[in-house]
């Protein structure tokens, strides 16, 4: 590998070393010399600069040389900036994930402190000129300087460590709360990472992470001029003092409550971060940095962190789909038909028009439904335009691109037709049969079915090879996953077209075989089936609802039911039972809930906190109770669900539903929001011993998504 370099120790690592280049800058008006450190990995803008052991060693050396010159009075200031578009994107995760033992983990933590601390403690003011993306260890580097400027076009600033099983341990957990206050630090270190929402440049200034913002056009020139003004004493940056110890503690306590309500202790990182933040107010620097190193050491050597790195890399790799045919086989798509004008169909039409930029025609049986679909498109576009997320011109283009019709003949010239009609095989077959009579033999027919057999749907067509599954998730605009279903006779051209369309829609596409429920619904519905099954057998609903908390899922099973819609869930459960058998159980309680329209969850206690099951649901289950002979406790339910999930994953791999466990994890992360700390699901099944117990084998080799032996 061309990027591979030999680290200082002589061992060959995969680190793409970011170099620290130092150049003197003459400050205006004779203010003196500023030593400017540029961090640059020597690669183009597609390869962000990151910091691993060799890069940190180089930075430490550069900073200490600059510090010596500062002490000698040769320079009046020092600054750090990055190559175009990147300040520093963070620690080199590959290096972090490759640490073999606690000693190595502590060394990596200490290396960051050693390099950064020289900037904090230099005898002259230090500046971070944040010219581009600054995440994690990158932002911590900036925080280690006395002052920060930021370019107005910087797309992302943040400390996402807790979402990767880490804490900001290169000074961030200590410096940030002291700089911006405990509440903003809690948001940046705990809440935003969970929501995967970094800060934009302007926000960074508003919360006090950056002291000044300048246009990108001459950002560095203006930053240097600003630094000179600071050096000359013409600009004085006011920083608020820390909150009182009581206020500080109150904020931490409230955050801890919120964390418990969402995470339920399922992963250690945010708790360790919270512990650091709690103490950051009064710790002396040595003590604070030692505490960061303790936390980092423990977390780097945790399976949750390794699973998170695996998950992060899985999602990144997912942008190049495994098993997709040659992209050149894809047919050009210059107009798209959507059959149906319901909720899913109108969302699809909007996204297709927006991202493909081609005419989209939506067809339904009567004018009223067609008009309903079109008006859904219009009102969504209006909302996007009003909130500034879409320009008026782009909105007008989308609205103009989506037409409606009741005549199926109007879809004759489409290159791609996606059906999103009701989930009944006979209806879908009829739609395809009707379409085949009017479209060209080349037209790709796609189905958005979530559980029906695509092969069966295509079986009676003259050209079954043109049929492919494109399973989107609701809400279509937000959910990043598309399962691309290869039916028995799907042609490489149709499959390639489906992948090409998914890519242009900016979705991650996963190739799945035509097996019931594909990946996401099969596992989610299995899980829900196990939960209602346990309740049917006498387990209290609240026990069942709490039982899965150690998995770290985004919400409890009943909240999931509520999100999916109990009727849809029941429909898929029934459909999967027909295809896959009784492990997708019948539930009289659930049938009654759907029939009566009983609410399944209580109102959410606060925004962002998942809802709990409505205890009243117990009565519904009790009212139709059958054999109640086997009530379980939480551990029993969890064990049963995990056993069942493990068996199903084993079956799915045997059936060849996907190429391997990583695709299952990719689907569960992007299609169901399953957590990085579990690596999706298969690393969790390995580390809890489920896979060896149930399948007699691990799903991933040791070290792939855990600490290893």
């Amino acid at each position, binding site marked *: 590998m061309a990027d591979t370099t030999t680290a200082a120790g002589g061992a060959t690592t995969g680190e793409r070393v970011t170099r620290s*280049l130092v*150049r003197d800058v003459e400050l*205006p008006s004779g203010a003196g010399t500023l030593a*400017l*450190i540029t961090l640059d990995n020597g690669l183009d803008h597609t390869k962000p600069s990151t910091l691993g052991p060799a890069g940190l060693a180089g930075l430490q050396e550069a900073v200490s040389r600059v510090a010596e010159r500062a002490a000698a009075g040769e320079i009046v200031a020092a600054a750090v900036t990055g190559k175009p578009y990147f300040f520093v994107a963070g620690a080199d995760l590959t290096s972090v994930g490759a640490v073999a033992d606690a000693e190595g983990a502590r060394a990596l933590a200490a290396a960051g402190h050693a390099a950064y601390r020289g900037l904090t403690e230099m005898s002259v003011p230090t500046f971070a000129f944040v010219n581009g993306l600054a995440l994690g260890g990158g932002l911590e580097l900036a925080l280690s300087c006395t002052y920060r400027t930021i370019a107005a076009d910087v797309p992302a600033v943040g400390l996402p460590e807790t979402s990767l099983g880490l804490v900001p341990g290169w000074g961030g957990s200590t410096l940030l709360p002291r700089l911006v206050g405990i509440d903003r630090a809690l948001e940046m270190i705990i809440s935003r990472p969970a929501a995967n929402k970094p800060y934009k440049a302007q926000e960074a200034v508003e919360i006090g992470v950056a002291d000044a913002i300048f*246009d990108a056009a001459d950002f*560095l*020139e203006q930053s240097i*001029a600003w630094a000179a003004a600071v050096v000359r004493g013409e600009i004085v940056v006011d920083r608020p003092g820390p909150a009182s110890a009581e206020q500080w503690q109150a904020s931490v306590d409230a955050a801890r409550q919120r964390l418990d309500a969402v995470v339920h202790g399922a992963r250690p990182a945010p708790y360790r971060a919270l512990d650091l933040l709690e103490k950051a107010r009064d710790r002396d620097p040595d003590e604070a940095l030692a505490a960061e190193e303790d936390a980092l050491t423990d977390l780097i050597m945790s399976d949750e962190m390794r699973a998170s790195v695996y998950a992060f890399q899985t999602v990144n790799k997912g942008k190049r789909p495994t098993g997709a045919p040659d992209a050149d086989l894809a047919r050009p798509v210059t107009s798209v038909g959507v059959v149906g004008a319901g909720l899913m169909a109108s969302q699809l039409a909007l996204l297709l028009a927006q991202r493909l930029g081609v005419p989209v025609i939506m067809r339904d049986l009567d004018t009223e439904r067609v008009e309903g679909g079109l008006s859904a498109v219009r009102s969504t576009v209006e909302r996007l335009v009003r909130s500034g997320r879409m320009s008026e011109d782009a909105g007008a283009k989308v609205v103009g691109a989506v037409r409606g019709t009741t005549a199926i003949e109007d879809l004759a010239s489409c290159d791609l037709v996606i059906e999103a009609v009701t989930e009944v095989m006979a209806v879908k077959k009829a739609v395809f049969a009707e379409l085949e009579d009017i479209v060209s033999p080349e037209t790709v027919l796609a189905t958005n079915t979530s559980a029906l057999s695509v092969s069966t749907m295509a079986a009676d067509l003259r050209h079954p090879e043109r049929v492919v599954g494109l399973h989107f998730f609701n809400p279509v605009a937000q959910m990043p996953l598309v399962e691309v279903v290869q039916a028995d006779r799907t042609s490489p051209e149709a499959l390639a077209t489906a992948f090409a369309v998914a890519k242009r829609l900016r979705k991650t596409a996963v190739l799945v075989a035509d097996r019931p429920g594909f990946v996401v619904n099969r596992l989610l519905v299995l899980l829900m089936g196990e939960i209602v099954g346990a309740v049917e057998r006498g387990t209290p609903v609240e026990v069942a609802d709490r039982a899965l908390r150690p998995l770290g899922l985004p919400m409890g099973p009943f909240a999931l039911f509520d999100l999916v819609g109990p009727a849809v869930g029941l429909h898929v459960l029934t459909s999967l039972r027909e295809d896959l058998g009784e492990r997708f159980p019948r539930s009289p309680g659930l049938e009654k809930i759907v029939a009566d329209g009983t609410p399944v969850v209580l109102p959410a206690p606060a925004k962002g906190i998942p809802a709990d099951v409505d205890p009243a649901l117990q009565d519904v289950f009790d009212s139709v109770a059958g054999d109640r002979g086997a009530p379980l406790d939480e551990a029993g339910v969890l064990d049963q669900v995990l056993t069942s999930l493990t068996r199903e994953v084993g079956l799915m791999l045997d059936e060849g539903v996907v190429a391997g466990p990583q695709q299952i994890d990719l689907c569960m992360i992007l299609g169901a929001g399953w957590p990085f700390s579990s690596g999706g699901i298969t690393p969790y099944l390995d580390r809890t011993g489920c896979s060896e117990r149930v399948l007699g084998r691990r799903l991933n080799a040791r070290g792939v998504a855990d600490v290893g032996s």
Partner: protein
Amino acid sequence: MAISAHRPAVRDVVFVEGVRTPFGKARPDGLYADTRADDLAVKAVRELLRRRPELPVERVDEVALAATTQTGDQGLTLGRSVAVLAGLPRSVPGFAVDRMCAGAMTAVTTTASAIGVGQQDVALAGGVEHMGHHPMGFDSDPNPRFVSEKLVEPTALVMGSTAENLHDRFPHLTKERADAYAVASQQKYAAALAAGQITPDLAPVAVRSPELGWGLATRDELARPGTTVESIADLKTPFRPAGRITAGNASPLTDGAAVCLLVAGDVVADLGLPARMRMVSFSYMGVAPEVMGIGPIPSTERALANAGLTIDDIGLVEINEAFAVQVLSFLDHFGMADDDPRVNRYGGAIAVGHPLASSGVRLMTQLARQFAEHPDVRYGITTMCVGLGMGGTVVWENPHHADYSGHTTAPTEN
């Protein structure tokens, strides 16, 4: 009743502000080797606007930018693309200009003309040349008729050869005089730099090299302050064996940008802007391409005639030093000494460099500063020779002079 359209009267144009980037060496190890030409222009424009915060940016009616080679990072209608890149409102238009070395001068006179006839009020004019990215004449495809029909001598397209031709035509303008002139240019530049007359007009430019990281260009790179007549006496004569033109008495290949702000005389006060020079007249004239260096002679005569002035009325001259001999031919023609103190008080292109299409505005920016320093001088000129046989001259009036004629109305002939 018939409605008559508005018929504007001719009005004055004033020079308000000029800035330039530090000039860099047009070589792979030069300041701007890894910096785009359009970015140089962007930095100059933004610095100019920053220096005149009184000017509402939406009042800019035109951005005219010159480049000799209008491709690559100097392509795409520079004036407009730089306006967009510099963050000017989308309503501000722009265009690109080319008259080789007189590009920026032409951008000034063209936009000034639009202001003068009352169609615009405020213009940015200037030029950029990254001779490192765009070597002179690179990729040009001269029409074979130039040679076959003897429209020009074969040497006419090689600027150094046209300068050798001047030495031939004017044998009394010896290499020794040229070298002495060049050394003086270096000395005058060094003195001006030390006196703080150069740096105030510079826009600092962040420069990045993959090997060195980011830095900041704050001073011109090419000047050689220690130059003596002896040190350049034996330099090679690349254009002719035993020739006279050397790297010592010619301007070096240069990267840089310069831009200025022109405003209608009757608008400048309303905007709270100072008038630092009033445009009096201008002229471009053609000469034989093989002696293009004499171009400033007829263009100056014509510009003076347009103004009703003579050379004796001119107290300050900023003449571009493409070659020492070409300046000497101008001085000789007008009976001025080689070391006439009115001429290039801050030194010239031989010292600072000559990024072709941007040099005209450097001359004006320096003349504006000299006007403030010399309120006793009423009129000055900026002038330069141009490839393919042309000269350009602009005559300016000093608002600091006691007899300044004003710029809010066009005085009628008396």
